[in-house]
């Protein structure tokens, strides 16, 4: 089993989970539970028993539109670009993607959309572009992800998202350790 392929797969999974969920399959839930165990992360019971409807409503509330103003839009620009979409951080992300010869497949979301950035990490892992990955993490993704995480937790999300953000943080952290070594 190639660990490189596994890691890449993990990040694609994360990318999908941070994108709008249409459903959370039992298989996916299983993987998530096991991952948490493996990484020694504690989660509450309810985290993975979230119903689809609830997941959709909670996702909309946290990341799309909500009565309290969208609390945690998953775009780097909001945290490092003055509260707006499509600012310098987006251009930064695009610059990184271009260097690897790729770009977003869909034009719906701006380039600094979290799932896109995680998918990019997965891509760099698959291609073995360690140098670029290290730069991407240190100069970009890890500079805004903690701010996003803070905003998310402040919005008192469902335990599912608490679990998901802990998982993502742990994996990014470990990955960064590895590539910086």
């Amino acid at each position, binding site marked *: 089993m190639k*660990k490189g392929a*596994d*890691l890449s*797969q*993990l990040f*694609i*999974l994360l990318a*999908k989970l941070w994108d*709008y969920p249409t459903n959370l399959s039992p*298989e996916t839930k*299983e*993987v998530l539970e*096991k991952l948490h*165990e*493996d*990484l020694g992360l504690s989660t509450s019971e309810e985290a993975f028993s979230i119903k689809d*409807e609830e997941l*959709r*409503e909670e996702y*909309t*509330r946290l990341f*799309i*539109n*909500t*009565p*309290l*103003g*969208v609390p945690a*839009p998953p775009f780097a620009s*909001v945290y490092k670009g*003055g*509260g*707006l*979409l*499509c600012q310098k951080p*987006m*251009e930064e992300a*695009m610059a990184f*993607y*271009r260097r690897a*010869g*790729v*770009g*977003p*497949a869909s*034009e*719906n*979301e*701006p380039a600094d959309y979290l799932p*896109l950035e995680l*998918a*990019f990490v*997965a*891509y760099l892992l*698959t291609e073995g572009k*360690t140098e670029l990955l290290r730069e991407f993490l240190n100069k970009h993704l890890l500079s805004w992800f903690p701010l996003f995480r803070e905003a998310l937790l402040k919005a008192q999300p469902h335990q599912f998202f608490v679990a998901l953000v802990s998982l993502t943080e742990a*994996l990014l952290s*470990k990955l960064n350790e*590895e590539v910086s*070594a």
Partner: protein
Amino acid sequence: MKRRDFLKLSGATCLALASLELDNRFLRRLEAAEVSELPGSLGAKEIPSVCDMCFWRCPIIVKVKNGKIVKIEGNPKSPTNGTRICARGNAGIQAVYDKDRLKYPLKRTGARGEGKWARISWEEALDEIAYNIKKVKEKYGVHSLALFDHGASAGFFREIFEALGTENFSNEPAFFQCVGPTILAYLFTYGYQAVDPAKIDFENAKAILLVGSHLGENVQVSMIKSWITALEKGAKLIVVDPRFSVAAGKADLWLPIRPGTDMALLLAWMNYLIEKGLYDKDFVKNYCEGFEEVKEAVQGYTLSWAAKICDLPERDIKKAIEILAEAKPHVAIHPGRHTAWYGPQDVQRHRALAILTALLGAVNVPGGMYFPTKPHLQKAEFLELEEDHEVEPPEESLKEDIPFANIFHGSPTDCIIKATLTGEPYPVKLWGVCGVNLLQTIPNPYQTIEAIKKLDFIFTIDIMPTESSFWSDIVLPDATYLERYDRLYVCKENKCYVALRQPIIKPMFESRPPFWIAKELAKRLGFKVRFKDEVEYLNHQLEPLKLDVEKLSAQGGIAVFPAKPFRDKEDLSFGTDSEKVELYCEAFEDEDFDGVPKFIPAPAPPKGYVRLIYGRVPVHTFAKTMNNLWLNHEWPENKLWVNDKLAKQLGLKDGDEVILENQDGTRSDPIKIFVTPGIRPDAVYLAHGFGSRSPMMTRAYKKGVSDTFLMTHYENDPMMGASSHRNNFVRFIKDGKVINIPELRPVPPEIPRFELKKSA
């Protein structure tokens, strides 16, 4: 990378992960692209389009760099604004990149007004809307459907609702909350739509009269350019306004008129011109009907009487009319735009302005009224209806008692709301809302909310999550003007051009252009759409000009044609029944309204209260830009203008916070006061559109006070059904104590008082 120790994933996890068969669909291969490195907006790709930050629609050039919109400037090829655009135009970029903009179709999951949403697909959203339209139509009849529409997106939906057959296929706030009264007045006097935009040649005027217009603070770029040019050329400016506006600051004469008495001033002026023989005799003789009726109707309205009623120095009233008479016929009298002030008599006030204009001969001459030149475009109907398509009017129309409502498409707003609330004359059970911020626009929003609660279904199409979307069952994200085509912009001023609005970038997230949304909705309702896409639709319109979208864009986005604002005297006729300017309006008399305006004052404030009046700020557009990052930063909240002598008497200082309580006991959020000599002591003034009640508008929420939420009282104009916005009265609450406002300017007995309800 030491793969061995990196992640201790159990075998089970790895197996489970592999079974998901994930592939990286998020990315694709990309060729290297040119990245511009020049500073600022230099080196950008330039695309011509048309602004939509307000309704004036100045042609613009949008600069795109590395896929991002970086700057918006005026289009140098535009004969009206050239390279100039206002603060809102410049801030259009923010509308696109606002993190709070509507991104995906949303469905309400909690109770109406609770604000709980789930994202759904376009399929589901459109299916649901179509299903409900059909269901409500079945159950209650077609007239139970109503569309609240405004702006560039609304046209296609209006066509759909009209085709469905409801008489309530439109009720634009643009008419019923705004420009309606003066359009009606000028239409019946001059026989053409002279008001929107105001077809007045400011630039060449020798004297300019503004009555209740604060041009300069309401920004209409080309009009301001024209006005300022006139001032620089030495035109005399007379401003009639209870507030010392920016325009008043540039005026030769400021008449701080008692609110509600403009009619007295206008009638006295008309009488003065006639009595002294200072009116334009030739113009009246050759081009007007009804002079004798006017002469008779206005005799007795003296300047000294007006001075008493209007609380103005007689010498200033006289000086003003003499300036106008001296400058005739090159006098620019602004016809008014937002004129839904008091309800009854609003139309007549603008009839008086129209008559005054004619008496001064300020028609079809430089400096006066002109005629627009229409470019030869082909009409394009969105829907292709069957030959035998018919719509049936209702047994009893809800605008039955409003004789001139039919001049405008659809029905008066208030009629629709009342029908929704009461079920009379028939129930209205479904609202479509397109580009209208219902609760910040229509007076008595509390009543609007009650009406919404009675609906079977309500859907909204918008760009931002305004107060209306808060109460909707389905919310559809509209693409911004920078992300779509819209119908061609035809200049209706004294220049003639056609301008193209085209997408600068692809719509973000899943927002969609109104053509697409309307087409999908139309299909589901069984209608055929005539055109494949917007380009086909626009090309159809452009055909007679031998242009198409591509050519028009390639030539800079604008096609300019020769304009003829003034007709040859021999050819001068008007679109009225008599083909002359109708100083006396028979059509009004036939419906039991005054053929010549009479003085009927708006009631004065009750003792202890002052009138609440409002206006615009140059940095915002009504209630729609408050959440815009740059504009909000520039002007985040409104302040209450309070007369300095009044403030002193009440012991209030500049910057103090008060709460307003109106005649119905409705209270506002706190607002800071701005103590100034620039407002009468019987009125307080604040800028419209602030005090957002929608928490979704994160930057605008509760900043300042909403004038609309204090307008719990309104009266309708009986002629065309417009609302009123300036007959609410307030007193202050400070530190929990009610402060009754002393009357510093006595009210003459001719003016009745507004009567407080006993229960208030």
